[in-house]
């Protein structure tokens, strides 16, 4: 019978135990487990995730371990062919607290969620960043996210001209 906990080794060479249930919430780890059925129980290497970030991921998995599996909704085409953004509302209070962290940490968790393929967490982090971007001017976005303004005045003028006629936020 498979053991109830899995060992993983993080990028900073820490070995961390996580429950099989949590491990299976990550498609990446799940695939690795399936590939190594019957093999010795060696720690699974996660070279792209640090122990600090992994602990955050485990926290999230612990809170959401009983959630139903996410279902991908098929979005119907808008007859008017207008662009409509996906919903980015974060409704869970616990999640709201969870994302209340420094941008550096958020980005690390997002990358880890992407690497580990934890869909719910990945969506949560994307939503949070999208919410951070919403309603901000280009200057404010640059400041918030550390983006260097390398556009020339000509570039900006061309953009104003080309993209000027856009719809307001929906």
């Amino acid at each position, binding site marked *: 019978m498979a053991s109830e906990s899995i060992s993983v080794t993080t990028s900073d060479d820490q070995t961390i135990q996580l429950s099989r249930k949590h491990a299976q919430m990550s498609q990446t780890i799940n695939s690795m487990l399936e590939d190594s059925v019957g093999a010795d129980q060696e720690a699974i290497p996660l070279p792209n995730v640090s122990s600090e970030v992994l602990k955050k991921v485990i926290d999230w998995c612990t809170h959401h371990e009983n959630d139903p599996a996410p279902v*991908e909704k*098929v*979005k119907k*085409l808008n007859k*008017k*062919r*207008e*662009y409509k*953004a*996906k*919903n*980015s509302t974060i409704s869970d209070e616990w999640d709201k607290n969870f994302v209340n962290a420094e*941008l*550096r940490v958020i*980005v690390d968790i*997002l*990358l880890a969620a*992407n*690497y580990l393929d934890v869909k719910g967490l*990945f969506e949560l982090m*994307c*939503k949070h*960043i*999208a919410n951070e*971007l*919403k*309603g*901000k*001017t*280009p200057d404010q*976005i*640059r400041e918030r*996210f*550390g*983006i*260097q*303004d*390398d*556009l020339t005045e000509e*570039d*900006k003028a061309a*953009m104003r001209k*080309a*993209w000027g*006629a*856009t*719809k*307001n*936020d*929906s």
Partner: protein
Amino acid sequence: MRTHSEETYTRTSHSEIDRTRVAVSRDKVSTTLVSQVANVGILYLLNQENTSEIDWAKVSVSQVSRRAIRIVNSMEEHSKSCKLPSEHLSLFYILDSLIKAFMLSAKDNREGSRAARKKIWQPIREKLSIWAGRLLKGTHTGDIEKITKLMRIWREKQVFDNEVFPPIEKMIADRRQKREDAKKRAALVEIQHKGPKKRKIEKKEEEEEPLTVESLLDSDASTSNDVKRIKHHFFIGELPLEILLEIMSLLPTKSLLNMLSTCRFMRKLKTEPTIWRGQIKTLHMNPNTAADHYLFISRHSNRSWIEHLDLSFCRPPRTGLDMNNIIREIITAHQSTLKVLRLTGLNEVDESVFDGVNEFPILEELDVGLIGQLSIKKLVELVERSKNSLKRLIAPYFGREKGFIGLESLHTIITCCPEISYIDVRDRIQHFAIPKNFFGPNQKYVQYDKDINEAIKRGIMILGFNTMVDRQKMGYDIRMADGMTSLLLASQLGNTEYARELIKQGENINIRGPMGSVLSLSKSLTIAKMLLEEGAQSYTFEEDALVNTVYIGRHMKDEKHVEKWLHSLRYIIYDEDINDWRGEAIELLSNLLGDTIFMRKFIMRDDEDRRAVLRQTICEDKFLSRVTTDTTIIQRILLSLGEADLYNSGGDD
């Protein structure tokens, strides 16, 4: 007698070195060098064709050393001009090959042989430190590891005297230390997470340091993840494109445009859809990203804005949407601004993707090659909807299950598009598709024939009429094809008059790749012979024509002369990697045809090899003789190569 250490060296170390060498040989830059010398180092040194034939007991050290010294000297020359670390690294592998060859040949332990051995070690020893120094200057982590491994093996097996190693090992240690320092510094900056302005201040403060953050970005250390984070500015450089796309799909239009207005990189995402394709293609980690993102970006604005849409080979969407629906929506929404539409390689797609198209008012290029289901009727309909602007129609192999294009359709395409100059309908035309009474009293077809000939006069290039050879026999005008095919047909049919006419037209005959793909080498050279005989001054062989010729020829086992020719290729190249020997094949043909054919420039191998090739191909196989019996031409070619004596003498060593 071979020493124990030498024996162990040859048996144990080379499997791992060979593996590394294979990896290196894939490097485009070093391929030529490695394939020229390292991969055939032993064979060349011993003048044998394969290792199984070598009788080591008979191998003389002095024979090897004489050749080896020549190679080492040429390596030294090459080393001076090496600009990339990988080229320097190649030198080390070449050196390793030499050592291997020398170890294997070291059965002869007589006094004279020992002296000869000493002779070969001397220049290698002298140059080793210099090469190592050049190699380590600006090399990558992986290279340092490889070179360290080689050095360790050489040291363990006592290949060189011990005094050779310390200076090189010191260089390696210094380099490694610098790298570690750079990493630490980059990590520190990362933790502090400073904005660009602060980083500039820090740069000033660190002026005394040899490595600054900015210099790190340009240096080899930029391969580390830590530095990459800074390089592309925080956030944007941090996130893979697919994540950015995911975030952007959550933004309302205004915020999205604001985000796209923050920097050049983001702006590119908006203005250059091809960037998306290129980026997405490289993202292997998540294969579910593709067509739906095109849909997403196409919806950025409710106006039509895409001019250049290339959805070729894009992957199915992950959202469960139907691929046909997605592409139909994009094309429909942007039909009024599209100038280039490429939809090749979409086997799952059918012609319903064009259902929303009323008109392509400014479409100049339509590429629908390899669309799974596209009828001729639909193709002609699309052409008619873009008739005022269409210049290029590319539809080879399309609609595999929907039959072939006929002259009637071709007639429609040609006559309704005044701007059209290029029609690629390769493999869409079958000679048996033409009615038996085609050349008879059926005026309709005769009219098509006239129209198409008129089109030829308009300078339209039509690819796809390479089966016209049969029709020529029926009296059809062979000018339906491009230059290469026409020449081929002319030569095959003995229509030298037309060939001469083409040659007289002269300068603009362009022997193209696509047509070359159906030609064997002998046919290519037949053309070349004709060009020579007719006194042609300048013709262009496009690279692909020759590549394809050789590629196809390689698989045509029944064509013995091609096999022989390729056998001679292997003698030089000794590498099964197609990418390796393509260049060589072109170079060889360039050598054969000399200055009468303008070729792109390729790296020339050294004179020794070149002469060996010429000897093998021209004199021993009499290969060229099969193409032309005119010795004047052969001599002219050899003369142009400065090798006129080869033909008569049978070559020398």
